[in-house]
């Protein structure tokens, strides 16, 4: 059991800034995120794109903002459960909450802050009618353990970075790799595209373009796929394989949070915006893009504000009746949980003779 003061669901910019604000109040945080890395949409969708409306930054790349936020909260030693999706939340008799992930990891805290953005990122599944029959029986949307593809005949579909990168990687261990894409052009890092071109020339990757997979063959397990060439003739043919890996990127879905008993409106969690961004369940807050209230704006800067007010309310729940006054970091400095201290340099008092 992982225990903490504030359990934050979602390690995007809002969740990361909440760690900093909580740290100023000597509250410790642990974050859960379905993605294997921190940053949320900023790292998954647009790390190399600039943002122009972060106060104090005329221009900053989304990836840089993530790095900065991590650096800013580092001394408060947040814990992370990454690559796992928060599945259930159960209120305990003592008022705390236990949140369990899809992999069974349990977390306990008196305050839960949902900073889940648009939800957890799930693989986009191609609309092939019989595909669901083969999930985990030769169809995988995410590659968890590349070893299962050793000496196997693999078909990958997709035209982005992950399709290219996995084709390159699996060409070393699989007996055969076929990459299928609807166009001849691929959108990915230039060196990945060039590498696949090189592997194709050497006969190590079988490239089928422009084409798409239209159905899956097999009874209990994938034995092949039907491929439709999108040329003039529209010819269809069967391609034998042991695994079919469609890699069409990820899209966010609100997911299991929708079943936690929270008031949901327009795919977002209703909160009390006049006070502290608490949900209808006392002790559970929703901050950032995942919440909604009259006048809500889905902006990172609004998430920062909401995180700050949430932390004040969390302090009062965790330390009932305890006095507190707002402190300015410039005046008080920052005492890290790791023993570090940041503070403004003292003024020099020296006589001029």
């Amino acid at each position, binding site marked *: 059991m992982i225990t903490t003061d504030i359990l934050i669901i979602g390690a995007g910019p809002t969740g990361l800034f909440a760690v900093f604000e909580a740290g100023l109040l000597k509250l410790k945080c642990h974050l859960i995120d379905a993605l294997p890395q921190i940053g949320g949409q900023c790292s998954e969708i647009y790390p190399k794109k600039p943002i122009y409306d972060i106060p104090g930054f005329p221009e900053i790349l989304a990836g840089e903002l993530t790095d900065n936020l991590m650096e800013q909260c580092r001394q408060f030693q947040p814990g992370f459960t990454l690559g796992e999706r928060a599945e259930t939340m159960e209120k305990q008799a003592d008022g705390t909450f236990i949140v369990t992930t899809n992999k069974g990891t349990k977390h306990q805290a008196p305050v839960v802050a949902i900073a889940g953005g*648009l939800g957890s990122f799930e693989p986009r599944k191609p609309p092939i009618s019989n595909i669901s029959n083969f999930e985990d029986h030769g169809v995988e949307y995410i590659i968890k353990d590349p070893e299962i593809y050793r000496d196997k005949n693999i078909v990958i579909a997709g*035209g*982005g970075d992950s399709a290219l990168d996995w084709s390159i990687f699996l060409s070393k261990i699989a007996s055969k790799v076929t990459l299928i894409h*609807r*166009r001849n052009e691929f959108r990915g890092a230039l060196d990945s595209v060039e590498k696949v071109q090189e592997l194709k020339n050497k006969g190590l990757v079988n490239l089928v373009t422009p084409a798409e997979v239209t159905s899956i063959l097999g009874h209990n397990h994938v034995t092949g796929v039907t491929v439709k060439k999108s040329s003039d003739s529209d010819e269809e043919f069967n391609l034998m394989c042991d695994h079919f890996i469609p890699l069409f990127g990820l899209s966010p879905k*609100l997911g299991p949070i929708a079943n936690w008993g929270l008031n949901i409106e327009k*795919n*977002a969690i209703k909160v009390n915006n006049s006070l502290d961004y608490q949900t209808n369940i006392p002790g559970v807050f929703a901050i950032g893009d995942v919440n909604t209230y009259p006048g809500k704006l889905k902006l990172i800067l609004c998430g920062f504000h909401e995180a700050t007010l949430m932390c004040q309310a969390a302090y009062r729940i965790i330390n009932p009746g305890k006095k507190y006054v707002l402190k300015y970091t410039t005046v008080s400095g920052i005492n890290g949980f790791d023993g570090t201290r940041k503070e403004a340099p003292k003024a020099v008092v020296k006589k001029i003779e």
Partner: protein
Amino acid sequence: MDQDVNITILDRNGVSHNIDAPTDMAMNLMEVIRSYELAPEGTIGTCGGMAMCASCQCYILSNHDLPSKQDEEEAMLSEAFYVKENSRLGCQIQINPEMEGLKIEIAPES
């Protein structure tokens, strides 16, 4: 109101909406759909309009001469689902006065 164009949008349930879209607010088709809430929040414009998610895919039903696709839109549509000949990403279509009478259908969610 003379700056508005009249657009017909078929939502994902097949319901037709006749709406006015401003041409002077630098709005794109995805934003127009969101502003009229013709598709639930969270199911359209996921990436914010960067041609990176295809959640705003539309089918163009009228014969308007729209600005042609840029590489990013072309690439995203090549990875999207339910793509047809007349597919476009709403976020890449800026509303302008030539779009008076435009008729589109919002593609299924994927």
